[in-house]
């Protein structure tokens, strides 16, 4: 799409339309300006100051908050955890969404029912999802361990040489925490990408499949030769937005660990600490707003760089698909 520069092709006599257009855009612009743009700019200002919420004065300290964050090893722990989460969630989550979409696309009957079922978690708020999963993951009385336990017992009863079931410490052992959070996130978000993949699948003309079938291609060959390449724009789009979303992961850790009174704020041995959570803890638990804002901008910078890289990829994809 091309955007026509104002005034370039429109005759001067019709310039009044621009003002009317602006008038129509004004409500949105005011909201956007007040609740997004202004706080974002104010945030940059705050991040350059030592800004304790109770302090009467906020001295300007330049980039000290940023350099403090970069030398703060907990910042790096949070970054590492966040990257680990992204690596777990993005490929696996997209695979699940794609498989669900493929399954649904091949259904003759009942597709709408399953679509609703798989999409349902997406519309639940993360607070509810996390509270639900906190119980499911409970080591002693959780649903997951209960089911796993009965499966293992049943397998033992039919004579498989398995050891008695040890309850799994889903949210209690540091090395289990991120995979557990990733699992619940996939459950929560798979439906959203599934819908996009379904749309992408719907855009592939049936002719190609018919042609492939006539050529004697197996279903597997049809997938690799037709579906996968033609679905690529959708896949790339889904990946880009999953990465952006995953980097900002907050609610899961917050509800599972921070909002629980008496617990450690970020999971056992900080295993659930993500960048967004660290930002929150610094800003709203330690009341160091300046430091918290600096962390927010570092996260912003990371996401921005990734976005630019990914959009370059998308553009190249578009360009090459036109050849």
């Amino acid at each position, binding site marked *: 799409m091309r955007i026509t520069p104002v005034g370039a092709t429109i005759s001067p006599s019709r310039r009044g339309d621009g003002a009317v257009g602006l008038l129509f855009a004004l409500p949105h612009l005011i909201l956007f300006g007040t609740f997004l743009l202004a706080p974002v700019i104010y945030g940059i200002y705050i991040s350059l100051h030592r800004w304790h919420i109770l302090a009467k004065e906020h001295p300007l300290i330049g980039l000290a908050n940023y350099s*403090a964050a970069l030398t703060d090893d907990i910042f790096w722990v949070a970054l590492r955890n966040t990257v680990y989460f992204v690596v777990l969630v993005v490929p696996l989550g997209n695979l699940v969404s794609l498989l669900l979409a493929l399954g649904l696309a091949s259904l003759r009957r009942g597709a709408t029912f399953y679509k609703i079922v798989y999409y349902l978690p997406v519309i639940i708020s993360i607070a509810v999802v996390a509270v639900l999963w906190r119980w499911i993951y409970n080591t002693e009385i959780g649903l997951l361990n209960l089911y796993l336990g009965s499966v293992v017992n049943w397998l033992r009863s039919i004579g498989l040489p398995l050891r008695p079931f040890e309850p799994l410490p889903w949210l209690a052992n540091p090395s289990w925490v991120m995979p557990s959070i990733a699992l619940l996130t996939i459950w929560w978000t798979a439906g959203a990408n599934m819908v996009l993949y379904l749309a992408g699948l719907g855009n592939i003309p049936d002719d190609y499949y018919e042609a492939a079938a006539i050529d004697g291609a197996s279903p597997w060959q049809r997938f690799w030769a037709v579906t996968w390449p033609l679905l690529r724009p959708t896949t790339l789009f889904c990946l880009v937005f999953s990465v952006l979303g995953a980097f900002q992961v907050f609610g899961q850790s917050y509800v599972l660990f921070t909002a629980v009174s008496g617990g450690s704020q970020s999971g056992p041995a900080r295993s659930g600490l993500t960048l967004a959570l660290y930002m929150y803890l610094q800003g709203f638990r330690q009341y160091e707003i300046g430091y918290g804002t600096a962390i927010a901008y570092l996260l912003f910078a990371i996401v921005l760089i990734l976005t630019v890289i990914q959009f370059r990829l998308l553009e190249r994809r578009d360009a090459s698909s036109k050849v």
Partner: protein
Amino acid sequence: MNSFYRRACIHAHSVIALLCMTFLLGGCDSSSRTPSQGVTRTSDGKILLKFWNGFTGPDGKAMEQMVARFKKQNPDVTVQMQIIPWGTYYDKLTLALAYGGAPDVFVMHASRLPGFAAYDAFQPLQQHFASSQPPLGAKDFASVPWQGTFYKDQQYAMPLDVHPIGLFYNTRLFKEAGIVDAEGNAKPPKNLDEFLDAAKRLTKDTNGDKRPDQWGFVYTWQRTNWLTFAGQFGASILSPDGSQSTLSAPENLRALSLMHDLIYKHKVAPKPEGVDAWLAFRQGKVGMTLEGIYMLTSLEEQKGLPFAGAPAPQFGPKQAVWGGSHLLCQPRGITPEQSQAAWRLMRFLSDDSLIWARAGQVPARLDTRNSPQFKALEVQSQFAKQLEYVQYEPLHPKSDAFFPLIEPALESVLLNISTPEEAMRDASRRVNQLLERQ
């Protein structure tokens, strides 16, 4: 629906949203308060006091009872009490102190007082203590909470209570294991040897799967348990001048090794991994635990749980136990008249603290603590024996920021992920970093 109409609808929504915002913003200014001559009054002419605390449990009911008594004896005053769960209490209080809307009286934990006092958030109270009738002063309070109301020689609070942790033990399990005195009563351990002996006898595999399902001891809140062990070994978070961390000092490493050994060497406590330790104690699967006196009502509610309380055993070379205190404060900038009315409430709550004690607290007031009614409260009076050597968290403005740095280290020691040396080296470096960051 044609597209023009749809767009018009969207804009209409934006306009409505905007109007709502405008009303909300406008509404902020016209609050219900009507100050007259420095006092806030309700429409029927009573002085209005706002009182915030975080007592969401049975302690909240006790506080409500006390406030109701106050209102009855002070018909010219009405109190609006707001109970905010501790999880968000300080967030809300901090915002109110920073941007307006602070209550006239609010509860503050002793360990949090310096963090707020350093930013000049409280009204000094020396005047009220000096002019109160009958007079009230240092001689009327236990010394630890009294000292905790000062920051840099200014007094900012009325101490309400002390809530140390102590030993809760299951008397039935003790009797079953034969840990009894001459009269056959369960006998709580007083020192490390007795503690280990009892804990070993209480740790049992009752269902024959070769794994213990009854434990001698469990860690509930690692922070307070560690502060108790550390204090007994003479360790602390900060050097006496508060300039640097002493977490890596050998005293602390010894304390942590012992805590670690209870799980992995003596095998009398479960690995703190997915165990709801407090629930296990309530269900009678655990012999002993170190918990706060404020948890007492949670045990009293548990039907059929025979338990008792005792001072924490002495694990290290000296006596120490962690405790906290609830203090009552007023915000900086309160008018003198309002402050005077707020003081009446504070004074009343202090005078009337026996009700408070019943809800699971040791009152800070010595006259209440020495009263026969208080001595009749079995667990409270046992825990009160520790009052002389109760230790708070370090009273440092950044005290509350230390624990997010220390607790993960404690956890990794107790989960056997790092050695005490490694864990405390990291925690110590981080605390020092925090102290340097002005």
